């Protein structure tokens, strides 16, 4: 009898298994109809759902991709010369790369952030930091051009940047390397107690986005690694992760990992802002470049600024606190509600979450655990909201989906871990390929994330693509996060080394993306407004060629009377008024680069002829069926010749 019972049970079990199998079969059919391929496939002629802006790292630029297709649309030159468009080579854009160190044609771009209003993406501008020669850039999201670059004085290794407050009041730039402030000749090993870490607050004008360095908070000489603004209830605060609270100046690999806990610095910027508005702070002599590109003159100008306001935070009670955070925290991320501050101890297995409410209570209750250089250290247990026991290793960065979940990358164990904000329980984990750094969910660091995809940006590519020699582009993976479990749906190479990225829905930007510059609004001083104004003028050995282009000829296209030793400025005005019809200009022996001139724009290329002869120039952008005919000649005569300046077209 008992035997029968068992077999009946076994039978029942089998039935269940089979029924279960049928169900599984059905759902897998369902999955088939929404396969990974279909999820990322954007059919020819159709457009992506999201823009993604990935930093270029050592390319110094910013690249624009579509999600979910992973197609790259554009590389926006920011801190690096870019021969493709002539950025940093043309006379108009050279000033954009001016610094107090002179012309610096490269940087290491790290953390893009899109402007926000009320904590939500507003799609006006995107900001990005230059890490090496500290700079912050503002890029227009209608022209997709770099409009402004501000150098940051008293800073070095501009890494905890460029993050914006929730109404774009400030773009914030923190120093990774502390340095003597002001810079001076002193022994390196006297670092401890003497070096300073400057946290810079740069205001953004609401109408035109113009930047102004309002004040710098001079903090103890730690390394300020990453930062994020408070939002919602914590708006008015800014949080910076630190490492090297040991203040080591050598072999940091070992010496900066001695303390069990470093800090997250909580800065009450509203309090400091008020202090500065009331005349607080010290005016310090400085020298830093402020470069602005004017869309109407199509020209950048560089101005050297000579003064900065520095603030000693210990003079403003209640303005700065330290939150102890284990194991050299790297990422410092704030959830959409503004309640939780996530510190990822990069040498840890766990993620530390601080509570903003508890922090306020601990401040109120003076729950201090000593101080560092006069700055109160809050008791760890008093501010801790919870710990995510992930089982991974090397947490770095966290983004949010707006559904109460967080996604953290783990560098050492190469994975993305999804966890619940509040219960701190791990929900899912998926491998990345390989060694993931940052990740990005469109709007994932704002009050309103668009939690459909997460992009993981990796540091190591290895076998993901066909090998291309020792150096390969970095890999990125796209995961569908619309369900309970993450699903890896695509893998694509990225340009340079993307650190952070920012994304937003396509409809926020696409409708206002600029198509042309209006010719009748061109205020360039060397513009050729109408073809009959095309001419060549000489002042000494400086020659200015006012030239216009339209499909498919230059006006003028024959120039004589140029001499060896002249400095010839070709000011090219593109008379096209149609979308996507740039013309290029290049001339043999050009020591700069070609220039690509957008419809209605004027750009200038300098040419210094060194050899007698008749030298051709041509259009570099295949502009029409007669593109190959778009060419001209410059006759270069010996320095002492007396050939008169002349210019013609069609004669």
């Amino acid at each position, binding site marked *: 009898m008992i035997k029968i019972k068992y077999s009946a049970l076994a039978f029942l079990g089998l039935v269940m298994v089979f029924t279960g199998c049928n169900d599984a079969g059905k759902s897998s059919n369902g999955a088939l109809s929404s396969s990974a391929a279909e999820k990322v496939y954007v059919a020819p002629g159709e457009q992506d759902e999201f823009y993604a802006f990935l930093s270029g790292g050592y390319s110094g630029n910013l690249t624009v991709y579509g999600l979910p297709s992973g197609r790259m649309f554009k590389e926006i030159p920011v801190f690096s010369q870019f021969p493709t468009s002539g950025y940093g080579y043309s006379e108009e854009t050279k000033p954009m790369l001016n610094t107090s160190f002179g012309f610096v044609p490269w940087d290491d771009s790290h953390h893009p952030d899109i402007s926000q209003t009320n904590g939500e993406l507003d799609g006006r501008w995107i900001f990005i930091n230059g890490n090496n020669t500290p700079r912050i850039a503002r890029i227009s999201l209608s022209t997709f051009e770099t409009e402004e670059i501000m150098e940051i004085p008293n800073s070095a290794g501009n890494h905890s940047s460029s993050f914006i407050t929730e109404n774009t009041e400030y773009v914030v730039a923190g120093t990774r390397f502390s340095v003597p402030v002001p810079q001076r000749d002193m022994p390196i090993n006297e670092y401890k107690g003497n070096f300073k870490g400057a946290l810079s607050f740069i205001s953004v004008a609401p109408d035109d986005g113009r930047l102004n360095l309002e004040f710098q908070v001079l903090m103890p000489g730690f390394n300020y690694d990453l930062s994020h603004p408070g939002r919602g209830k914590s708006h008015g605060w800014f949080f910076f992760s630190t490492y090297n609270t040991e203040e080591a100046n050598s072999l940091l690999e070992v010496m900066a990992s001695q303390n069990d806990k470093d800090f997250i610095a909580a800065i009450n910027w509203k309090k400091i802002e008020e202090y500065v508005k009331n005349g607080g702070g010290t005016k310090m002599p400085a020298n830093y470049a402020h470069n602005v590109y004017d869309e109407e003159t199509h020209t950048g100008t560089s101005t050297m600024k000579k003064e900065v306001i520095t603030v000693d935070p210990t003079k403003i009670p209640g303005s700065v606190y330290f939150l102890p955070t284990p194991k050299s925290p790297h990422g410092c991320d704030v959830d959409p509600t503004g309640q939780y501050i996530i510190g990822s101890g990069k040498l840890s297995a766990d993620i530390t979450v601080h509570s903003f409410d508890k922090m306020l209570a601990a401040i109120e209750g003076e729950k201090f655990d000593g101080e560092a250089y006069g700055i109160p250290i809050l008791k760890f247990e008093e501010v801790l909201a919870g710990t995510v026991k992930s089982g991974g290793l090397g947490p770095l960065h966290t983004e949010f989906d707006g559904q109460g979940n967080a996604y953290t990358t783990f560098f050492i164990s190469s994975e993305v871990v999804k966890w619940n904000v509040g219960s701190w329980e791990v929900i899912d984990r998926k491998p990345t390929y390989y060694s993931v750094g940052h990740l990005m969910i469109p709007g994932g660091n704002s009050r309103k994330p668009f939690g459909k995809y997460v992009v993981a940006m990796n540091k190591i590519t290895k076998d993901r693509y066909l090998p291309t020699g020792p150096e390969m582009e970095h890999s990125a993976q796209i995961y569908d996060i619309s369900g309970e479990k993450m699903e890896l749906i695509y893998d694509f190479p990225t340009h340079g080394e993307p650190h952070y990225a920012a994304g937003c829905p396509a409809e926020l930007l696409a409708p206002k993306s600029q198509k042309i510059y209006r010719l009748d609004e061109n205020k360039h001083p060397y513009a050729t407004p109408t*073809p009959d104004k095309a001419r060549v003028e000489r002042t000494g050995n400086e020659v200015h060629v006012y030239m216009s282009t339209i499909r498919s000829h230059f006006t003028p296209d024959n120039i004589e009377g140029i001499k060896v030793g002249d400095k010839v400025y070709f000011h090219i005005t593109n008379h096209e008024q*149609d979308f996507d019809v740039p013309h290029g200009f290049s001339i043999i022996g050009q020591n700069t680069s070609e220039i690509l001139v957008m419809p209605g724009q004027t750009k200038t290329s300098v040419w210094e002829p060194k050899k007698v002869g008749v030298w051709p120039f041509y259009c570099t952008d295949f502009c*029409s*069926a007669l593109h190959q005919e778009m060419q001209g000649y410059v006759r270069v005569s010996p320095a002492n*010749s007396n050939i008169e300046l002349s210019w013609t077209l069609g004669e």
Partner: protein
Amino acid sequence: MKSILKSMALLFSLLLISCGGKEEKKEGFSVDRSKAPEQTSEVSSETNDVPASQRITLDEKGVGQIKEITLDPQIDTEMAAAGEAIFKTNCTACHKIDKRFIGPSPRGILERRSPEWIMNMILDPKLMTEQDRCAKDLLIEFNGAAMANQNLTVEETRSILEYYRTL
């Protein structure tokens, strides 16, 4: 040997001197430059006998947003002046009044084309060269140099038309 070298050098420097200044004008190579008779098939209509630029197509309104306009017998001089300014900025790179250039001269165009056709051609040259027979033939006659869309408004285009009436 040395003297030979010296005289060679002298010869060369003389040659170099003669290189400066104006060069002797040389005729280009000669070929029969008359155009090969085009093998036009029977498909071609009667219009092929006359070059598109000479054809009179006043009944054709072209393809585009301008369906019907009526011209006042009196020329609006103010509008024509505005049109002239726009023409100068946006059109003179390719169209000269006194000669055929990249494209045809607009002089006398109203004797050959309807006002609607002219405006449609300015407003959307791509659509016209794709769908209008005369515009297509003009593109071929003018060497394949596609007319640029200058993104003008209907009002701006209308003023250019008024300017054409004064030519």
